[in-house]
């Protein structure tokens, strides 16, 4: 596979970065320092990092209510992300968006749209613009398993496939939409089969395996850049935490979650890197330590920065 050791270590680093970021965010939320809601990406790090590692800066992702991981995987800065989640002017969205609406255009994230499925049409339109302008960029809208049941999802895949647009539709199957198991919201086992409705490839990968996700994405991106149209990429993992920080999880057994923790993508990838000699465990320890430090200073940065000045309250309503 066309990816060197340094790149693999960087993938590992971003996975750890997401994990530590989410742990810090959940902690701040529980202590009341973050308002609104926090939807942790814990357990899905390999999906976002595998996908985004296959993208260029100019390629655009569209996120969801659960997009801290998507943004960090695409290269967003944890300090400005944390500042946003704390509602500070130094945040990516100057505190206007918060956890559910982080956009970072400078690193190719056109925004997290919290209405399930609503990022799909927008990503399709951005891909249309790339196609019309003769640019080779792709767009990558993320949705969850439950998001696949929205009208937006169907309309977006139909339109993108009809026009052969450069889109990679990433469907992150983490098994639940809030409390609803995907098995109780559809009548099929394999969501990738829905690609057939649009005459496009439907690919299903282990969403705990960052390298598998990466390789599948590389292929889909190549297809898209070559003008062969969209791909539906289903990454199957699991939401290891509650739907949101502090969510009671009355709908699933502790044992089910415990079982899934055995698939935690971070230690397993770490093992692969160490065993295959890509990096020594000392090197990986150093990565872990560096990330932890980065998160600590990100939180400090976020706390230290000011909230938006009330005189700016009506800015950005109109261009």
């Amino acid at each position, binding site marked *: 596979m066309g990816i060197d050791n340094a790149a693999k270590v960087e993938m590992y680093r971003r996975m750890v970065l997401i994990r530590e970021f989410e742990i810090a965010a959940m902690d701040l939320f529980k202590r009341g320092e973050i308002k609104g809601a926090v939807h942790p990406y814990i357990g899905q790090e390999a999906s976002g990092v595998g996908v985004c590692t296959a993208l260029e800066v100019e390629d655009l992702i569209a996120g969801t209510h659960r997009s801290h991981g998507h943004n960090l995987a695409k290269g967003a800065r944890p300090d400005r992300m944390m500042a946003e989640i704390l509602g500070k002017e130094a945040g990516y969205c100057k505190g206007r*968006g918060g956890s559910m609406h982080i956009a970072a255009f400078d690193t190719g994230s056109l925004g997290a749209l919290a209405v399930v499925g609503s990022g799909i049409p927008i990503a399709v339109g951005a891909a249309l613009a790339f196609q019309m302008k003769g640019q080779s960029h792709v767009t990558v809208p993320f949705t969850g398993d439950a998001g696949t049941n929205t009208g937006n999802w169907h309309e977006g895949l139909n339109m993108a496939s009809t026009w052969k647009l450069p889109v990679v539709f990433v469907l992150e199957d983490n098994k639940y939409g809030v409390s609803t198991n995907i098995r109780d919201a559809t009548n099929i086992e394999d969501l990738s089969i829905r690609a057939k409705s649009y005459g496009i490839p439907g690919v299903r990968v282990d969403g705990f395996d960052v390298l598998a996700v990466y390789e599948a994405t590389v292929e889909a991106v190549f297809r898209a850049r070559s003008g062969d149209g969209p791909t539906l990429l289903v990454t199957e993992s699991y939401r290891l935490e509650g739907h949101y920080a502090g969510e009671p999880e009355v709908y699933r057994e502790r044992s089910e979650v415990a079982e899934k923790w055995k698939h935690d993508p971070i230690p397993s990838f770490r093992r692969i890197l160490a065993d295959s000699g890509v990096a020594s465990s000392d090197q990986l320890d150093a990565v872990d330590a560096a990330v932890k430090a980065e998160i600590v200073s990100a939180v400090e940065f976020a706390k230290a920065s000011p909230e938006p000045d009330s005189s700016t*309250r009506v800015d950005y309503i109109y261009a």
Partner: protein
Amino acid sequence: MTTIEKDATSLGSTTPVMTPDLINQVGSGVPSHELSYQEAIREALREEMVRDESVFLLGEDIGVHGGAFGVTRTLFDQFGPERVRNTPISENTIVGAATGAALVGMRPVAEIMFVDFSGLAMDQIANQAAKLRFMTGGQCSVPWVLRMPQGGGAGKSTAAQHSQSLEVWYAHIPGLKVVFPSTPYDAKGLMKAAIRDDNPVIFLEQKFLYSFRGSVPDEDYVLPLSECDVKRTGSDVTVVASGYMVWHAMLAAEILAGEGIDVEVVDVRTVSPLDEDTIGASVRKTGRAVLVAEACRSYGPTGEWGMVVMEHAFDYLQAPIVRVAGRDSPIPFANSIEAGVWPDSQDIVKAVRGVME
């Protein structure tokens, strides 16, 4: 006022404070019990489901999870997955399915998790359910209720896509009834009426009010879907409000009473069809009107209320009609600029002092 807005039940140090006894709707001696706004809605749902087996609930995560705000909690255990039905994420189809079931004899109560998401369902709400009876020349009716939590509460930071107040979208559409209760008593009585009504009823629940408590009678009761409710009688100025703003109006009235200003508070608990007579009569009595809404100011509910005052009480007006409404802005996340996006008691106090000059 932030302390007053921060916590729903015991609202901080400023006196007078926003406490349940600001609004008493159950006469003394009437057997009653205390419920939160959220519990009152649940009790109405439970009683109607027991009374009439054609009543059932559908919506996202309303089962074991009890819905995003816990309103349907425990109903799943009592009535099971058939009558407390989890749906896929398909807002337009949730509403359309409710319509179809209503057409053949059921009385569905559907939930859209946040009113904001009704943007996905406006076709089924406004083009289908609202018009089917008319378009078919009365061959059918659509007896459903659509529950939608709306609005915000300072400090909650639910941001732009989870905080809107959209009653005008529905109230502008003939064929729909639009209800927006401010108290547990009204929430229970209006929900029972909505379920028994043969028309599609939009039932808006102000999220910040879920924890507000108040007394409801032990015996079965329903409230009319056609009336404004005078929550406080007064002679100097009429404050027209609905939802959470009714509480700010009541609190403002308390504060103003201390200044010798006697405020009448008219609660537009049924937004549409609008009870023009009650608003008109009140302003003919007081000669002054302050209109308060959490919704955005422009093309919001206060405009309609203002024209109703104009049409029913122009000759009695001793001061211009004043409105106090939400900022014309998407709802910001950061507390520092979320502050003031919705009106509060102080804004109402200022407005009333203004019209009294």
